[in-house]
Every structure is written in C-alpha cells, then in structure tokens.
C-alpha cells in the first residue's frame, strides 16, 4: 500500500514542476529587445582613413605624401595627394601620422601604434630614383618600428615609395614582408618625381 501511495504522489510533484517550467518559459518568451527606436550609427573606431608621410630634408622644402579614404571599406578608393617633387641626391627625414577622420575630432591612431610598437612595423620599398630607406626608431626590444625613417634620393627621374604597416609581424625579421608575416593594416604606394 505504501508503495502505491508513493507512486501516486510523484506525478503530483511533476505536475507542479511542469507548471513552474511553463511559467518560466512564457516569461522568458515575453522579453525581447525590440524598443521601436532607430538604431544608433556606428562610427568605426580603429579604421585608419588617412596616412600622412612627411619628408623633411635638412635644407629645402618639406614634401608631404597623403593617402585619404574617408569611406573606409566603402567603394571609393583612397585619394593620393603629393605636395611636390623631391630633390635629387638628398636625404629626407620621414615621419608618419595616421588618423581616423570618420570621427570628429579626428582620432590619432599613431599613438596607438606607439603604445603597441612591439606588435607593429612599417616596411618601405623604393624603386627608380628613390634609392633607399632606413629605420630611425626602435621598440622596447630594440627592433625597428618605422614611424620615423630616412629616405634618400638619387639622380632625377621617376620613382615610387611603397609603405606597408603590418600588425603582429614576426619580430625581429629580415626586413622583407615575406619574412615578417602578420596582417596588413596599411599598404599604399606613392609615385614620386625626383628633380
């Protein structure tokens, strides 16, 4: 007799549990995120829209190379502006500033690169009348970064400077992109006339 009474009481417990579970499910189902308002726009934070490379000779006119792409990942390609021609057989001190101009005021990304300089490196490659580059700065481990560098020119003619910023490259590396690996944050090429 006792066992029968026990068996009958279990479905009662189940019934109560079932009701509780049902209530819980219904309550859960009634909550949702819809508030009917317009969503807020997203301004991309770590986008780099603008790179300015300033080339200053010890004596003479400073030249700026500008690459600007305000629509970021949008369909428009970056606009490239070069302020003037470089002088032949001259050594220039280069410095790089990166901005996110989708934000107002523009966010300076250069400082983020400086803070994480062990995870970043610029790579330069030159052709034609541009004859060479060398690094002027190092990270905490003594490896090059490239926010400041030198650029030398040869005889008058045409040339190009390609600037690539890699995130999480192998450091140290042999100075080539192939050896460095990592992800590309910037890859721009400037066609420059040397006179």
């Amino acid at each position, binding site marked *: *007799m006792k066992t*029968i*009474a026990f*068996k*009958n009481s*279990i*479905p009662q417990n*189940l019934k109560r*549990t*079932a009701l509780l*579970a*049902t209530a819980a*499910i219904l309550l*859960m*189902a009634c909550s*949702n*995120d*819809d508030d009917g308002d*317009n*969503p807020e*726009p*997203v*301004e*991309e*934070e*770590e986008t*780099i*829209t*603008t*790179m300015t490379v300033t080339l200053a000779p010890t004596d003479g006119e400073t030249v700026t190379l500008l*690459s600007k*792409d*305000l*629509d*970021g*990942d*949008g*369909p428009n*390609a*970056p606009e490239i502006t070069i302020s003037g021609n470089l002088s032949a057989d001259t050594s220039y001190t280069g410095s790089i500033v990166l901005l996110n101009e989708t934000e107002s005021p523009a966010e300076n990304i250069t400082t*983020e690169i400086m*803070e*994480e300089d062990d*995870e970043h490196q610029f790579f330069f490659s030159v052709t034609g009348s541009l004859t060479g580059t060398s690094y002027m700065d190092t990270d905490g481990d003594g490896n090059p970064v490239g926010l400041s560098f030198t650029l030398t020119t040869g005889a008058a003619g045409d040339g*190009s400077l*390609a600037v*690539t910023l890699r*995130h*999480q490259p192998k450091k140290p590396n042999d100075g080539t*992109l*192939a050896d460095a*690996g*990592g*992800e*590309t*944050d*910037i*890859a*721009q*090429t400037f066609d420059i006339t040397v006179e």
Partner: protein
Amino acid sequence: MLVIVLVNCPYLVAQNCTNVLSGTIIDFHDRTPLVGATVQVAGNANVVLSDFEGNFSLGSLCDGIYELEISHPECSTKFVKIDVQGDTSEKITLEHHLEELDEVKVVGDAVSDATNTAQEKTLRIDDLERYSAGSLGDALKQISGVNSLNTGANIVKPVIQGLNGSRVLILNNGVRMHDMEWGDEHAPNVDINAVDHVSVIKGAAALKYGGDAIGGLILMEPARIPAKDSLYGKTLLTGATNGRGGNITTELTKAYKSGWFAKGQASFKRYGDFEAPDYVLSNTGASELGVSIGLGKHDFVWGWDANYSYFDTDIAILRASDIGNTDDLIRAINGREPLIVRDFEYAINKPRQEVTHHLAKLGFYRRFEGLGKWNLQYDFQHNQRFEFDIRVGDDREKASIDLRLATHSLSTDFKIDAKRDFILNFGLMGLYQNNFANPDTGVRRLIPDYDKYDVGAFATLEYTVSNTLLLDAGMRYDFNYIEAKKFYRTSRWEERGYDVEFPDLVIEDLGTQLLTNPKFEYHNLSATVGMQYQVSNDTELRFNYALAQRAPNPSELFSDGLHHSAARIELGDLRIESETSKKLSLSIQKEGNTWGYNISPYANFITNFIVLEPTGVEFNIRGAFPVWTYRQTTARLLGLDTNLYSQWTDHWRTDHKFSIVNGKDTDLERPLINIPAVNLNNSISYANPVWKDFKITLESQYIFRQNEFPPNIMVFSPEQGQEVLLDINTPPEAYHLVALDTSFKIPLNKRNTLSVGLTVNNLLNQSYRDYLNRLRYYADDLGRNFLIRLKLNY
C-alpha cells in the same frame, strides 16, 4: 491506493447480484466495431469475446464499480472503470493500429519515415554515437549525397545534394532552428548527443515543416519514451588524440505507466589545437556545452510536453586565416604551410566565435475519436553570436560582431487519419523574429536590426491506392515580411544604384551615412506530388516532384561590409527576389537479406538562384580586397546518390557509396561555386554477435578533385605593383582517406552494459585539403586521429 479500494468495493457490499453489463467495443479512429476483443473483469477469471458488431455482455454483476480489462490483438490493452447500477450498457473505444502511434512506442522500435515519396535516409543512435565528440554535420556525411561546408574542423554545415545554408532546414525536436544559418561560418547550434535519430529528406517534400527547403530537411528527433514505470540512462565518454580532448555526455529518463515522464541530458566537449600531419593548426580548439531537459504527459487521447535546451559553443578559428588584404591572401594561397604555426595549446584565442542558443518548446496534442489528431506548438529561440577578431588598442577585447536573434513561433496542425487509406494533414504557422545588432562593437553592422513576420499554411494528402501503391500531394503558402533599419555609407548607397531605385527608403541623412528603412514582402508557394510503389517485398520505387520557393535571407539582402577574418567585402542586394526550385527525384531501393541497393537520381532547376561569388576588387588604405557579391541566376543541379551493400556471409559485409552532383549556372554557362566533388566510399565489416557483439569496419573514402568550378579573378596587387591572378576558386587535389572502427559490448549485469569502441580516422596520416573547407587556402586538414568511446547503459 485509490484503484485498489475501487476494485475491491463490489465484493465488500453484499447485495443482489443479477445485473447485466452490455457493451460495444469500437475503434477509436474510424468507429468500426472490433471483433474478438476479450473483456474480463479484473480479478475474475471470466472472459467474454466481442461479436461481429463489437458487442459483448457480462452477467451476474452487483451494483458498484468494476474495472474491466479489454484487449484486442491489434490494439493496446485498456482498463476501464464502469459504475454498474442495474443493467448497464457502455460504449468502449480501443486504440487501433498501434504501430502508427509514436507516443506509445517503446525505445528501440523502428523509426518510420517522415515522407512517403521523397529521397530520405535516417541515422540511428549507433551511427550518431560514433560522432558524439564531433558534430551533426560530421555524422550526416555517412549519408550518400550529404557533404559539409566547413570552416575548420569545428564549424560544419550540412550540404544536401549540393545546397546548404538557408536552403537546408534543421528541425530540432520539432522546432525549426533559427540560429543565423545564413552565414557560411555559422554552424548549426545543436547538440548531436541530445537526439536519438536524424532523418535527412533530400528536397522540399515535407511541407509541414517549411516550404523553402530547396536543399532539404534535417529532422533531429529525441528518443521516444515508453509509457511504463522505468528509469534509465546512459553515459558516453569519448577521447580523441587529435585535439587532445573529447566529449562526455550523460542522460537520464524517468517514465511512468500513466504517461508522465521527465528527462535530462547534458554534454560537454573540449578540444585544444588540432593537428595536420605536418604541423599544429594553431588556434583551432573548441569548447561546447549542451543541456536539455523535458517533461510532460503523453496519454493516448491527449498529452503535452515542455522542453528546454541550452547550447553554448566557443570556437577558435585558425590563426593563420586572419589576414589583412589581397596580398596577404595571395601569400597564404601560394605558401604551402600556414603563416602562423605555434606549439599546441588548449587556449581559445582570437579570432574566435562564441555562440549561445536557448530553445524552449511547449507542445500539446489531442486526439478526436473517429477523426484524428490536433497538435499545437509554441517555441521560442534566442541566439546570441559574438565574433572576436584580432584588434588593436582599446578595442582589443571587443567583439567585432554582436548579434542577438530572438524568434517566437506558434504552429498548429490537424491530421485526419480516421480512414486508413486516406490521411489529410493541414496546419498554420506564425512567426515573429527580431534581430538586434549591438553598436558597441565599434564595427559597422554586417547584418542590420530587423523585424520579420512569417505566416504559413499547408495541406498534405496521402492516399493509399492499394497495398503496393501510395500517392501523396501537398501545398503550402508562406508570406514573409521583413522590415530593417540599416545604415549605408552614402558612397555605397550610390555605388549600388539604390539612390535611384530606392530613394524612399532613406529616413535620415547623417552626412557620410544614411539610415534606411527597407520593408519587403515575399509571397511563396510550394507544392509537392509523389508516389511510392512497392515493387516486391524488399524493393520500393519512389518518385517525387517538389516546387519550392525561398525568400532571401538577411545576409543576401543586407550584407555590406568587410569580413575581417576572411579579408573579403561581402555585398548583399536589396533587389534580390525569392528563388524558385523545381526538383524531380527518383529512388529505387532494395533492402534484401543478402544484398540491397539504393539508386537516387535527381534534377533540380532553380530560377533566381542566389549565389555569392568573388566579382572584383575594391581598394582602401589597407590595400586591395576581393569583393564577393550576391547575385541571382538560373541554376541546374543534376546528381546521383547511390548505395550498395552485400551481406557475403553471416559475419562479413561490404558497403559501397557513390555520389556525384553537377551544378551549372545556365545564364553564364559556367559551373556553380562550392559544389561538392564526386566521392566514392567503400567499406568492409566483420560482425560477430556471439563475441560480445564484436564489430570491425575498414573504410576507404576517395574524394575526387572538383574539376567544375567558376573562373578565378584578376586583382591588382599593390605589393607586386601589377594585376595578378587570384587563385581563389581553384579546388585542391583529390585525396584518399582510410578509417578503422571497432566496437564490442560487455554486459556488466542484467541491466547495465558497457560498450567500448575505437575509431582511427585518417589512418595513413594523409595530408589533404578539401574544396568545401573555407580554410583550405591556409592549411591542411586534420591528420590521424584515434578516438576511444566508453558507453555505459543503465
């Protein structure tokens, strides 16, 4: 206690016992009289039988309550209490054709097909348990004609006869999964350990579940619970050498004779980095937790159940696949080794995905005498997806994608099965869905905020013409309404030509961005007709024609942005319309004792077929990026799935599978992208039930090279300063894999059995890459893997 008192009652009260109880026994379903049913008063040896009209009579009864036991060979035995006051007459219904009523079936019984005329295949628990530590997509590849689209080893999307994603519906315990299935790198959020059997229906023939299953349907069903007092469960432990992890799953079910039941199940999976034959696949680990609980009461006439399941997965994505631009992609494709290989670790680092899925379901049914069965179901799903990319500065720990998808759906259907040769099923479905894209990511939304409403109605008819011929037909109508609030870059809005075509959609101009409010409606019609012909005892012929329409998913409409992890820009199109598939499928099947086969050819003609393909390049400050655009075209898929088995002796058996599919874009006269390669699978097995149910299988799998693929694209490489060919579509070489599987069972005592299994995948440690693995550009697939399974039933 109550029952015993009632039954004893008549014998306790002394009185004049001359009453006659007369009654009629009829079939619950079609109200026909039941002949030859035995009627017996409980505790009394007297038995009477019902006559041709189903009538019976019992004499010499006292006033009081009697319990009668009524049984019939084709019905389940029933106990009825009858209050006898003088001569009494009573109508008694019995539940006929027991074999069709799944609620009262016991565990281990045959699983009936979900369709009569479509190509269909079911995997049972034994087939699934071998993949306990894998995923649904891995297990389904056992079926000829089912492949998978992978992103590494952990993200496995089923491909049915060449189609995947939104074209493949997954029904988890009767609930259609809404888990952002639109993305190539979004795996189904289901726990393979929570189900007892999985059926794959190759096509849109099961209209009850949806009309848009242009690829097919996957029905995941839990085990049936017997209506008897019992408590049982199992625990299954799997360990794997590759990934140095495994899975544990456990479940427990309590059932009562009264129909009450409660069950619970949980599984946990953990892996570290997987390994290719030559190197570690750095950052490919995973962690997965699945929990499900359910309870309810399943009576014959009515029943209800409540189920809740939770699924949480954290998946690391191959580190070397996170790249910056086209030049990085070119370097990855040309390099034979991943660009980043580190030592093995368990940590799940960025890039990674973290997805949780809640599913709650309430079901109710009621049977009506002489008519049929009514079902009502409400379900709720909540899917939260985070994707973490490698980011810099303050955003380092922030997700790049943070989407929340909530879906409510209510469905009801009525099945009229009173006539045995004629079954009519009709129903209605309503759905509300809300997607919220969290702006705190600091990354422009890939998928916008939207609300979606669906309403559907269906009717299907099954007509058994004779013992050998069955016909079926069905129709379904679905209405979809989607309303989104989406920001477009003004430059993108203009580049797409939307400023000309959809100027009215703009509700706010923010200068560089536009807030738009697209509202679209889709009307979709689906229909199916088919036949099943029993050629002989073991041979069956099935033919099915299915018309199906599918509305575009949010990704196809709204995608707009850079997929950082894939280094590609994906662009949806607001102009995309529903796609329409017309599929013919035939299947000839023999299931004999010594040999059998299944030959299933099909042809699928799709108009407005939505494809995502690389179409060009866009430039930004980071360089050049391939652009993948959704477009619509006319497509044709022709294919053949075959199986053959031969039982050579009592112990030896061989199995052979072959499948081929050809997908063509008939507008552009060129092959479709991501069509599975031809594959051939042969295995030889030895089984001996006397030796502790010992089984061993050696399997060979040969995947041909896919020779049909769309052309590669030319891109400008800033690094190389010239146009180069981006080898993005070229498939990898053919490969051959060998696997070994063995198992045996040790009975521990009367109730408990320990099953032990050992599987070796990629036995020869072959290096290979698969065309349908999205990480094939970056690394080889998995090397040799030993898996040990221990299962305890109790």
